[in-house]
């Protein structure tokens, strides 16, 4: 069953066309990763789906409800953890949660009970009495997530939940998201981090300049770049010879002293090494490399995703002396 269905979403802010026909489908129980660089239109998409802005054109349904025609009904089905934490620094963690519980008509006792439940679930029980102004970034983010779970939403929208978090807090947040999915919540999360989408999402939608440019599982997207490659580094004196030798059998691309060959599997690596050995070329480094989502992005758009993204393409192989 589709829990989120959006078709042809358009949104223009003055000169900027933030959305240029976004289509989106999310099945029940799925984690969808909405991946794209800064300014791609992720937040605008989330804002449309969470009733915060009306699109100029297009339709959007959440849990079967048309969010444009009946935003009030849609609000009962969704939870939003926006790009900026929606917490009051002057309130304690528990007070923050109780407030939202009261607004969701859980009643006083119900709101308290639900707050305690979530504080425990998100590992915040011990700091429940502390004002959130004193919280670390990771704690705030988890509390923010807890706040959007109070009403047990059918769909949870998370806008860049881990941007700015340290790795430890990020892992804790990932764990929290996974356990929500395990309870049956459908989740749409946006991220600029390719590794995060890879790690969390069942399916990834890549968005750029307000358009969906790819849609599939992480594995499918990686396939589109042509599978894994074999990389060999060689000394300057032998690089021309090595290229010539390898080019007889494979399509070789060269980047300074690094030669890259499409790999069918580990077998290719063995063959490359044997061939080089026969021609007296000693590699300085070899590796079999899985494509990363960075490659995906590059292949789809012809440009790097985001200069700020940490490089993850360290060759996963042994380094010869």
């Amino acid at each position, binding site marked *: 069953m589709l829990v989120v269905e959006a078709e042809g979403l358009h949104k223009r802010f003055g000169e900027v066309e933030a959305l240029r026909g976004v289509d989106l489908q999310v099945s029940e129980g799925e984690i969808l990763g909405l991946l794209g660089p800064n300014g791609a239109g992720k937040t605008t998409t989330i*804002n449309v789906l*969470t*009733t*915060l802005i009306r699109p100029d054109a297009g339709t959007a349904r959440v849990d079967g409800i048309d969010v444009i025609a009946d935003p*009030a*009904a849609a*609000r*009962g*089905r*969704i939870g*939003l953890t*926006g*790009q*900026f*934490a*929606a*917490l*009051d620094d*002057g*309130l304690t963690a528990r*007070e923050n949660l109780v*407030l*939202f519980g*009261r*607004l*969701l*008509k*859980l009643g006083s006792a119900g709101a308290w009970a639900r707050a305690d439940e979530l504080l425990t679930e998100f590992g915040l029980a011990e700091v429940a009495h502390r*004002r959130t102004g004193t919280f670390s970034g990771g704690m705030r983010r988890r509390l*923010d997530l807890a*706040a*959007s779970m109070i*009403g*047990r*939403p*059918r769909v949870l929208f998370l806008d860049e939940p881990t941007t700015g978090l340290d790795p430890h807090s990020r892992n804790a947040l990932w764990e929290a998201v996974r356990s929500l999915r395990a*309870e*049956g*919540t459908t989740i749409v999360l946006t991220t600029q981090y390719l590794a995060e989408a890879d790690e969390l999402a069942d399916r990834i939608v890549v968005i750029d300049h307000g358009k969906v440019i790819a849609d599939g599982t992480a594995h499918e997207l990686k396939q589109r770049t042509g599978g894994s490659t074999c990389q060999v580094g060689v000394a300057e004196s032998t690089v021309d010879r090595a290229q010539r030798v390898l080019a007889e059998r494979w399509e070789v691309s060269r980047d300074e002293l690094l030669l890259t060959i499409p790999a069918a599997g580990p077998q290719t690596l063995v063959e490359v090494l044997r061939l080089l050995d026969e021609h007296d070329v000693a590699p300085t480094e070899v590796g079999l490399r899985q494509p990363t989502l960075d490659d995906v992005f590059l292949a789809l758009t012809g440009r790097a995703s985001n200069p700020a993204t940490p490089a993850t393409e360290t060759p996963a192989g042994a380094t010869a002396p």
Partner: protein
Amino acid sequence: MSPTLIPTPQPSFVSDTAQLAGRHLRLMSRRPSSIIGAIVLPLVFAFLFFTVLNGVMERAGVDYAQYVIPAVVLQAMFFSAISASVWAAEDASGGMSARLRSMPISRTAPVLSLLVGELVRALLSLVVLVIAGYGFGFRFERGAGYVLLFVALAIGCAAAACAGYIVLGFAIAKVEQVQAIGGLLYYPLLLVSNLFVPAEAFPGWLQPLVENQPVSRIADALRAVSTLGHEDLGRTILIAVLWIAGLLTAFTFLAPRAFGRVR
């Protein structure tokens, strides 16, 4: 665990406003600068104006305690309004407005709760100032009904000012800018008025403006209901009420729209 344990919550105008107003009051009560702005600063101004100007005003034949307490009360109402604009901007620039707007709650509650919270604060300032005023020699010279009218007019003014400043806060949504613009509005409104000195003290060409601007008109009414000897009591009150009603209507029409526009 089923994700649909609870029924879809329904917006409730009263309950949502009460919850959010409670939040606002609780946050203010924990912010030292809010408490100073609500209690200490109005007292300091009352004390300073009375101390510095009482001598010269007596010479000019004005009973300054009667004259200035309504003025500092109105000033405190504007402090509430400025506070409202800052809170509105904070909610709008953080994620709070977005979350509230994505929740199944009353659409007007987030805006109205800010107003309600600030009016409670304004009432506190008013009570503190009147008590201090009795120390300076201020008296309610008419009956109890007029005391209530005084309170109603002051709080009405606070409501109109708060609504206007809330529009500003949500529309601009940046704390520093909101503070700056709010201040630039506040000074001419309060200083080019008859709040602290009578309109006759201003140069002739400025007097029509000073006499007729809303803050002066409301101050006239506050003085008329607290001090004996004002002619045209009914008319003075009516003009103030019309100003308050007109401004309040205009701003309450705009405020939810400004809130809806928040990014």
